[in-house]
């Protein structure tokens, strides 16, 4: 967060951003909120990575005693929860914030204050969930928190309460952001920016927002049931009362499978921007890329039970979900080939973002193929809940999402800060990441097929697992070095990086016509778009600087405000107060809930009754 506290200096731009902590707390500028998202998510990436390293130290040799079984269970639960909800999703949100208005030619998002609110809810929710470490009660039910293990009867500590309340809070953040971006993309496109001219990243973001809007309510309800079971004695997950012990699994995975696409599509979008730029060719099969994403999103709601082949759903259900799952492989495969043929016949420059993007194409292919392997239920029975699955989803989420997000970081850092990141350090960062990633996760395919169940604190000696686990652990340590290099590159490039012009990479999409960093209003003149790559087709010229402020230009900009932060804070405290109920203080809990609910409502009224911007 220290990086976020001081705004980068930009000498070549006449426009000066406000500085100081207060300006960051009250900002409603989508680019600054994007930066906050990015730096916060990277901080949690470091935490989640540290958790992974501790897991790998424990598993480095058989019968490890580095940490206790309970600590281990907390670590893998929080590693998964952190990487999914606190790293990949918000890092994607960072790019949604930074890029969507720039790519569609808008001056901000539709609801700038709601945007700030989304970020503050994310920050407070993530802090709340991780505060559980301080009292030694971090969530320990696994990232998909299967009942009845997570019901009060089997987990009576605060661990699961932190998890479920934290996820409820984070869900609010994602939903608020989704409404905002849907409206922004539908309603704020510049003249000529029709849907089939939108940059592919914005398209992927658009699809992801619909997935969020439709998938998050389902987990919200699943969590509400769990919350009511734990706090109010309802019986949603009590098998003795006749409840279906699989209800949670169905609800969770109806959310959980679309969630996979929520995690991967933004990275696909970023790569679809990077590959054309450094191949100097437009994206191959733009329309098919768009339609395949829509198809993936649609089919994504019909495959959830492939996470449940081992529960015994019967041959008919197994067949049905196996076939839908295989079907979803087709549009995914199409994307891979379209990317390869984007490069085919091109003039490929191997910059750092391009290396990460190519790595995504290569590594996601592996994750996709192993995914097809467990789309087949009989084969899946031998694979599910083993390290083979761990290998699979790390190829998808690290080899796919994280590689794409790093490509995005290197590609858009100049736009965000006005400085280039070091190519030399970047090259080291990439190759270390690439090698370490494969070193860590490739052996997990073997340890899984050799009979190692996932989420195990120890494994016994003499089972043929020692060598694969040792290699995985060494890979993880190397990965830590790679991440530190990446962070160092981001840090030092703020000062030491070469000054980037408006369009340092020679890219074709609209956002590169703005100065780097863009002024608060992005576009002094709203552009008129005539093609998918206006910077290549001569439709737009780069603006190297914007010497005038919004006021001078007469552009109405939203006023900074602290109110969304307060609403987010009181909402978090309101839900956090529930914890007191399990500490034997029901009165204090109710008092806390009511107090913070009232404060939240008052701040909300105060926010809504204040005009967004000054009257003209």
């Amino acid at each position, binding site marked *: 967060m220290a990086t976020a506290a001081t705004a980068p200096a930009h000498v070549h731009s006449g426009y000066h951003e406000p500085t100081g902590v207060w300006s960051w707390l009250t900002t409603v500028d989508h680019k600054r909120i994007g930066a906050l998202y990015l730096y916060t998510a990277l901080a949690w990436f470091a935490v989640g990575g540290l958790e992974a390293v501790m897991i790998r130290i424990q598993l480095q040799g058989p019968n490890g005693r580095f940490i206790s079984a309970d600590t281990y269970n907390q670590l893998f639960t929080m590693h998964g929860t952190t990487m999914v909800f606190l790293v990949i999703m918000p890092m994607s949100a960072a790019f949604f914030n930074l890029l969507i208005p720039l790519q569609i030619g808008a*001056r901000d998002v*539709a*609801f700038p204050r709601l945007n700030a609110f989304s970020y503050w809810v994310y920050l407070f929710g993530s802090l709340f969930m991780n505060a559980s470490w301080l009292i030694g009660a971090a969530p320990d039910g696994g990232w998909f928190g299967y009942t009845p293990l997570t019901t009060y009867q089997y987990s009576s500590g605060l661990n699961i309460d932190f998890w479920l309340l934290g996820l409820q809070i984070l869900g609010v953040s994602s*939903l608020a952001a*989704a*409404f*905002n971006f*849907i*409206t922004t993309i*539908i*309603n*704020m*496109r*510049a*003249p000529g*920016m029709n849907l089939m001219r939108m940059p592919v990243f914005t398209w992927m973001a658009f699809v992801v927002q619909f997935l969020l*809007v*439709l*998938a*998050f*309510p*389902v987990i*919200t*309800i*699943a969590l*509400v*049931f769990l919350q*009511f079971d734990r706090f*109010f*004695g*309802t*019986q*949603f997950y009590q098998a*003795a*009362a*006749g*409840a*279906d012990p699989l*209800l949670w699994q169905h*609800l969770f995975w109806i959310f959980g499978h679309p969630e996979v696409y929520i995690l991967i599509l933004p990275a696909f979008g970023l790569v679809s921007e990077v590959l054309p730029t450094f191949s100097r060719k437009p994206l191959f099969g733009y329309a098919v890329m768009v339609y395949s994403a829509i198809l993936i999103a649609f089919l994504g709601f019909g495959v959830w039970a492939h996470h449940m082949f081992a529960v015994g759903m019967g041959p008919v259900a197994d067949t049905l979900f196996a076939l839908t799952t295989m079907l979803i492989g087709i549009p995914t495969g199409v994307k891979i080939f379209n990317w390869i043929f984007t490069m085919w016949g091109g003039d490929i420059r191997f910059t750092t973002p391009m290396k990460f993007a190519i790595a995504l194409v290569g590594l996601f292919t592996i994750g996709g193929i192993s995914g097809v392997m467990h789309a087949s239920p009989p084969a899946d029975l031998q694979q599910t809940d083993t390290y083979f699955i761990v290998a699979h989803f790390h190829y998808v989420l690290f080899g796919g999402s994280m590689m794409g997000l790093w490509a995005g970081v290197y590609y858009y850092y100049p736009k965000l800060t006005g400085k280039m990141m070091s190519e030399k350090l970047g090259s080291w960062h990439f190759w270390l990441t690439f090698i370490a990633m494969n070193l860590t996760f490739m052996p997990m395919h073997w340890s899984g097929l050799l009979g190692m169940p996932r989420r195990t604190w120890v494994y016994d000696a003499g089972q043929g697992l020692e060598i694969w686990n040792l290699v995985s652990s060494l890979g993880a340590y190397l990965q830590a070095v790679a991440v530190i290099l990446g962070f160092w590159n981001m840090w030092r490039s703020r000062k030491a990086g070469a000054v980037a012009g408006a369009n340092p990479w020679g890219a074709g999409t609209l956002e590169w016509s703005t100065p780097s960093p863009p002024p608060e209003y992005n576009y*002094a*003149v*709203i552009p*008129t778009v005539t093609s998918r790559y206006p910077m290549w087709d001569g439709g737009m010229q780069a603006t190297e600087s914007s010497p005038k402020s919004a006021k001078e*230009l*007469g*552009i*109405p900009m939203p006023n900074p405000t602290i109110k969304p932060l307060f609403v987010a804070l009181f909402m978090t405290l309101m839900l956090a107060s529930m914890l007191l109920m399990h500490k034997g203080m029901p009165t204090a809990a109710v008092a806390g809930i009511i107090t913070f609910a009232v404060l939240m409502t008052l701040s909300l*009224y105060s926010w809504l009754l204040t005009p967004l911007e000054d009257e*003209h």
Partner: protein
Amino acid sequence: MATAAAAAAGVVGHGHPPTTTGLEHRKIAIWAFIGSECMLFTSLISTYLAYKGRSVTGPFPHEVCNPPQCATTMQPILDIPVTSVSTFVLLMSSLAMVMGLAAVQNKDKPGWAGTGWWARIQESSRIWIMMTAILGATFLGFQAYEFTSFVHEGLTIRKNLFGSSFFTLTGFHGAHVTVGVLWLLTLYAIDVRRGLGPKDALLVDIAALYWHFVDVVWIAIFTLVYLIK
């Protein structure tokens, strides 16, 4: 939003550029929100239906239960006549909402509804907004009565699967109605303080969309939970 100003200024400089669809942002956002709410209630209703008839102990929604299955004889607990009345009340509130929106939209055309006392009532946005809120509150009163009588008959949220899923589903709906009533009262307060006119039509419009949605959800709940045995 200052669409008129933007149109006057063109795409350069002053004011906001026109929206792509010509619709207000908030109108699109409320539709996205309603889409999301649909999934929320779908999950709740599906769970209720999945658990229907699965309770190990009574009270049950429709079934008559005699010893030895139950300790004492139980009558069907859902009171369809009373709930039909509350459903009617909620439906009428939607009608009032429509009238309220029309009154706000036509505020700058005095006499648009014709003449006579009924026309004057039609033109009063305050009456209709307040009436919507009152009808909503009446519905909540019915729900409070229903919940209390269920508890007296031995059905609590902890009692059985029916109790858990019924109270959670109808409770969530009731919470939505409560938010709606607060929203309407806020609009009423604004109307009293500075008067709502056509320029504020959007404010009332999105509240109305929300209100109609909550009403439609209740129709689904009433049909699936109360009427279908």
